[in-house]
């Protein structure tokens, strides 16, 4: 039996432009891209292909220099047209000009009975070769899982509470069988439990509710209830020395498809959402799809910010960018590069705020959908207001003290204050509500890197 956990602290940012529950196939992108920058802690990725090579869906493109067996593969078949590098030759992305029809590299297929008797080593080998391993994110730190590690538990968050998050019952409709097989495979890796965490407020998709052999935990409450770090904290917290694995349901399903169908299947639904999108809805495409293709004729204007992922933790990608590896949606909001006369004091009912300070009325109107732009609404300042981060962090963690210990580069203090339990997304709301406009997520990542290198 799973647990029932009621999350009380947090904040739902209600934005305009939710996806309607309809799915349209999008015109096949010309190009797709795999970006090493989507993965935290990636160390000197080594490229395995050259411009001009032809690849199949599932052909290795690059690997981390420290974990050479964790290969990142092509989501579609086609020709490698560009290996894009940035400053100091840092690998930014590998672009593939896609074939009209996806040609899959074939991997070994397993029947359900094979899977039951499969050993951990065989399963690991198949997952590494099939390019589905990068779906497994390790806590602490949010890196790609180390294949040699023994996780004490595996957690799958089966709902997303971020602003404009798509509905998982649409995203993963009809994938029940693959999801179950994926979980069966993952179960082999841990002596502990595999947890599937669902939200009580909406109807739970049968993909998740019918799973067998796992702990089904129920959560209620506002964002960040959907963040897997928050869930782990309440189910079975991470202590120093623990390793826990986390996956998005897409990753679990991709593992299931690899074993049942013998292919690296990167097809997925991507929701295009946000106030600047005409008719927001779901589109059927592949991992790494090009933004240009996705947004074609679907935006209301040009002066926009295109974010791969959600508005709290996502990455600005621009019209020429590509959807990130872990992202199920693309959010388009207005760019906020304007001056506002007396903007610091003018009352407004159209600005969204967690606070109720003078002139901010959004708290009076809980159901209103807000159109929010990318303006910072203020300048960076010293820490002044207290107790706000704690109100949006439903964990027994003191974010202000943790952040200050990172700024002071005090590693022992960081450990004692719980840095092992959090990654960016868990504290993203702190960054949103911060009166003093700190880059909370960047500070946290700097702290994690400091901890790694000390």
């Amino acid at each position, binding site marked *: 039996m799973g647990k029932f956990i009621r999350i009380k602290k947090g904040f739902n*940012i209600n934005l305009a432009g939710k996806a309607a529950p309809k799915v349209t196939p999008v015109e096949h992108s010309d190009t797709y891209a795999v970006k090493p920058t989507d993965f935290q802690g990636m160390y000197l990725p080594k490229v395995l292909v050259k411009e001009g090579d032809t690849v199949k869906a599932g052909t290795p493109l690059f690997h981390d220099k420290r974990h050479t067996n964790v290969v990142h593969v092509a989501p579609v078949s086609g020709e490698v047209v560009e290996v894009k590098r940035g400053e100091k030759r840092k690998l930014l992305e590998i672009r593939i000009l896609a074939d009209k029809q996806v040609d899959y590299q074939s991997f070994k297929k397993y029947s359900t009975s094979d899977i039951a008797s499969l050993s951990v080593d065989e399963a690991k080998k198949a997952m590494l070769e099939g390019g589905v391993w990068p779906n497994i994110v390790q806590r602490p730190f949010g890196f790609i899982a180390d294949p040699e590690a023994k996780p004490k538990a595996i957690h799958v968050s089966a709902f997303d509470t971020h*602003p404009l998050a798509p509905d998982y019952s649409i995203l993963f409709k009809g994938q029940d069988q693959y999801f179950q097989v994926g979980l069966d495979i993952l179960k082999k890796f841990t002596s502990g439990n595999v947890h599937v965490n669902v939200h009580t407020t909406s109807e739970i998709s049968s993909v998740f509710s019918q799973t067998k052999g796992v702990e089904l935990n129920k959560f209620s409450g506002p964002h960040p209830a959907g963040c897997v770090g928050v869930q782990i904290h309440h189910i079975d*917290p991470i*202590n120093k*020395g623990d390793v826990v694995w986390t996956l998005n349901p897409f990753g679990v399903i991709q593992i299931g498809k690899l074993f049942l169908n013998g292919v690296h299947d990167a097809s997925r639904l991507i929701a295009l959402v946000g106030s600047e999108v005409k008719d927001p809805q779901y589109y059927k495409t592949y991992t790494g799809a090009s933004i240009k293709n996705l947004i074609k004729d679907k935006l209301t204007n040009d002066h926009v*910010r295109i*974010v791969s992922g959600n*508005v*709290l*933790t996502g*990455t*600005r990608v621009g019209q020429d960018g590509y959807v990130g590896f872990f992202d199920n949606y693309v*959010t388009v*909001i207005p760019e*906020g590069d304007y*001056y*506002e*006369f*007396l*903007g*610091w004091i003018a009352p407004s009912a159209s*600005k969204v*705020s*967690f*606070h*109720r*300070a*003078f*002139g*901010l009325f*959004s708290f009076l109107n809980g159901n209103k959908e807000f159109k929010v*732009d*990318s*303006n*910072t*609404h*203020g*300048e*960076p*300042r*010293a820490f*002044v*207001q207290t*107790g706000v981060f704690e109100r949006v962090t439903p964990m*027994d963690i*003191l974010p*202000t*003290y943790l952040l200050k210990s990172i700024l002071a580069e005090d590693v022992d203090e960081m450990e004692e*204050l*719980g840095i092992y339990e959090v990654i*960016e997304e868990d504290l993203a709301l702190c*960054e*949103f509500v*911060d*009166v*003093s406009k700190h*880059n*909370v*997520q*960047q500070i946290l990542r700097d702290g994690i890197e400091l901890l790694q290198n000390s």
Partner: protein
Amino acid sequence: MKFLRNQFDKVKHNFEKGGKLEKYYYAYEALETFAFSPNTVNGEKGAQIRDAVDLKRLMMTVIIAMIPCLLFGIWNVGHQHFLAIGEPGAALADKIWIGSIKVLPIVIVSYAVGLGVEFVFATIRRHPVNEGYLVTGMLIPLVLPPDIPLWQVAIATIFAVIIGKEAFGGTGMNVLNVALTARAFLYFAYPSDISGDVWTYFGDASPVAGFSGATPLSIGASSLTTGENVLNSLNQFGAGWADGIYSFSNLFIGAMPGSIGETSTLMCLIGGLILVATGVGSWKIILSVFAGSYFMAFGLNLIGANEFMLMPAHYHLVIGGLAFGAVFMATDPVTAAQTESGKWIYGFLIGVLTIIIRVFNPAYPEGVMLAILLMNVFAPLIDYYVVSANKKRRLKRATV
């Protein structure tokens, strides 16, 4: 507003890196962001949207919460003036006029001097001008007597901003509440101008027959030597020229002599309501200061060793600056305890200490100022133990 924007844009390049006025950038930035909230956008990774709140708006909310105290204070300065010179029937406009000419110069001096120091430091130290002074600049006048010489206001402000704040690294780093530092400075440097019969402005007029400048706190303190019942003394005070001025209801409303903004418990509570409703001030601190002082005063009632101890506990909540201190001074987020459970302890101890200082140390009749400053110093210690408890919970879990 396009014109103003254009003017800013026209001169901006002078202040940017490489411009000839580069070192005044932060002074320019302070003015520009005051007129226009900036056009900066969020970074590439992380939060793409931000809350509409910023520090300026937060500080403005506190100032708005202080406006009832300020307006009441202006009226009250005039009201006390006419009471003391024996013209209780003076017109409302006259009272406000007298109050304004006394109070507004103090406000102006406080802001002008304080912001001047802030700008100078921002330029020398190369940090942005923080908005904290918007609040401090209003707090300082409200805790001073109406007749304070303006040069003393200026000196106290300079001392408080430099020694109380900038020496520690500026807004957000200070240990002591800046406005209280200013008041404490005056209290110890110029005691004759901020204690005794200074709470009423006379101007050229002479006091009415029977006038006394004693405050409820000094009446309480003097009961230790005279042995008179404090309640009786309070109720009889003002007979002939201001009947019932120290009755409980009038003490609550605050039409009595005292510092400009702190006499009215009612106005402080209205301000407190604004702070709590907007979430800017911590209700935990406000409530626990009142609870702590009532607890301590009630305990002294039970002991009852002298007349001051026997003064009913609820009188302590409406006399002196307790309410003002609880609502506006103790809640300063920088100098208060910063952990949620720490806030309860911090506020409660302020209340307890205030009463102890009042009753047991009549040399300092107003205990709340010293109690808050003392607890400012101890707030980090309280937080230290709260944070340690959090760490211990985590450590305990690890061994299981």
